[in-house]
């Protein structure tokens, strides 16, 4: 074990991890917003918009992130739209994640019973109030496990960012491979992915327990 290597390059990895976390956080936050909007459009069966949402969900879930990134980073400039690689990464991740999050929220929304909706209406809530205070909290509690799985999936998907020249963990790894390092390098890569993903898993496990305790289940 080459401890000198590890201490020398851990710094590099830490920087890459920071970039990965920032991009992932932005992309996932956006994907939650997109997913929520799409799922509500489908829940309320808004004409026209619901077909668009449906088409988007299918497209986002059935194309690889790598291809979406290629399109954003190499394709769009030919049409005259040049985006920073950071911007491409966030948009790409949000585009991919939005479809998955929409399905997660939809599952939650469908689990909210008709009786609950009618109880909310009966106390005089307007539609937006009903969504805000009755439907979403219950839908969210049901959707948390799916949202958790999606979040972790999206964090892992960030590993393709290096193809659009972003200095993420895989990018650092490849760089060091080119310089001929192997075992310690592999270890660092795995370690740093664990460091960024494990806390997310733990946080969501905690969140799941909390929403369940706040009134659901037996």
């Amino acid at each position, binding site marked *: 074990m080459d401890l000198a290597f590890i201490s020398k390059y851990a710094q590099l990895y830490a920087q890459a991890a920071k970039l990965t976390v920032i991009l992932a956080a932005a992309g996932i936050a956006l994907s939650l917003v997109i997913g929520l909007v799409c799922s509500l459009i489908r829940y309320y069966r808004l004409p026209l918009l619901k077909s668009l949402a449906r088409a988007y969900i299918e497209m986002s879930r059935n194309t690889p992130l790598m291809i979406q990134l290629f399109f954003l980073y190499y394709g769009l400039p030919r049409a005259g739209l040049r985006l920073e690689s950071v911007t491409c990464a966030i948009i790409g991740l949000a585009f991919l994640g939005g479809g998955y999050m929409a399905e997660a929220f939809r599952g939650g929304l469908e689990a909210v019973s008709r*009786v*609950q909706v*009618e*109880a*909310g*209406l*009966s*106390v*005089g*809530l*307007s*539609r937006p*109030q009903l969504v805000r*205070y*009755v439907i979403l*909290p*219950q839908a969210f*509690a049901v959707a948390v496990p799916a949202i958790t799985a999606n979040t972790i999936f999206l964090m892992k998907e960030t590993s393709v960012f290096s193809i659009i020249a972003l200095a993420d963990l895989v990018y650092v790894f490849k760089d060091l491979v080119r310089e001929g390092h192997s075992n310690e390098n592999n270890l660092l890569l795995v370690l740093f992915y664990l460091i960024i993903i494990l806390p997310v898993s733990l946080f969501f496990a905690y969140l799941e327990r909390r929403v369940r305790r*706040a*009134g*659901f*289940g*037996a």
Partner: protein
Amino acid sequence: MSTAQPVLRIRDLHKKYDRLEVLHGISLDVPRGRVLVVIGPSGCGKSTLLRCINGLEAIESGDIELNGESISSGKTRWNLVRQKIGMVFQSYDLFPHMTVMGNILLGPLKAQGRDRREVTREAEQLLDRVGLLDRKDSYPRQLSGGQKQRVAIVRALCMNPEIMLFDEVTASLDPEMVREVLDVMLGLAERGMTMLIVTHEMAFARAVADKIIFMDQGVIVESAPPNVFFENPVSDRARRFLNIFQFDGVKKEEQPHVES
């Protein structure tokens, strides 16, 4: 009889589910401070009637007026109308993610925009009246069925409604919990609350009602004061219905009691 305007006035109400006509021209008045009890066989349209009144179902034709204002004109702002109509359902429908207090305050605070301190005080008084003040921070899953229904009643009352609608609110309860809920409703009647109650509890109906409405197959067959209706029902259908609740003695004689 007074000629004052009724709180609720229904004229020739028709309702269909697809092609199934469920209500064939219902007309009734609920005067202020009066209690009307609707009884009738399962599937005759009692729930549908209540659901039409607070806009959970669209109607085909007819007119519904609340305090003299039509609420069936098509441009009804239902969220405003429903603030004046308290509805309690058969199924426990408390919001599971909110405490008892959260359930009660939601409508007054968010829908009616009232002052939190004032509503909290009112909610506590109402909870005290139904004997549940000590459960105000509990979640619905921590309550018994009877307690949940009492909270649901308080939730509706705290909106200060013009009229309360009850749809078989004791039908899913274990027998020992029925009484505590019915007592709350009797208390409301004593305080002059205007109510339209659907129930299968005949003794309760008789005790609480100013008028019994007997429905069958989507029409009002009979409408009479409770003692008249229960003692001298006019129609065959009402007599047959009431017979369901009668038991003739079947034991010929007292069986000797055997100790084992």
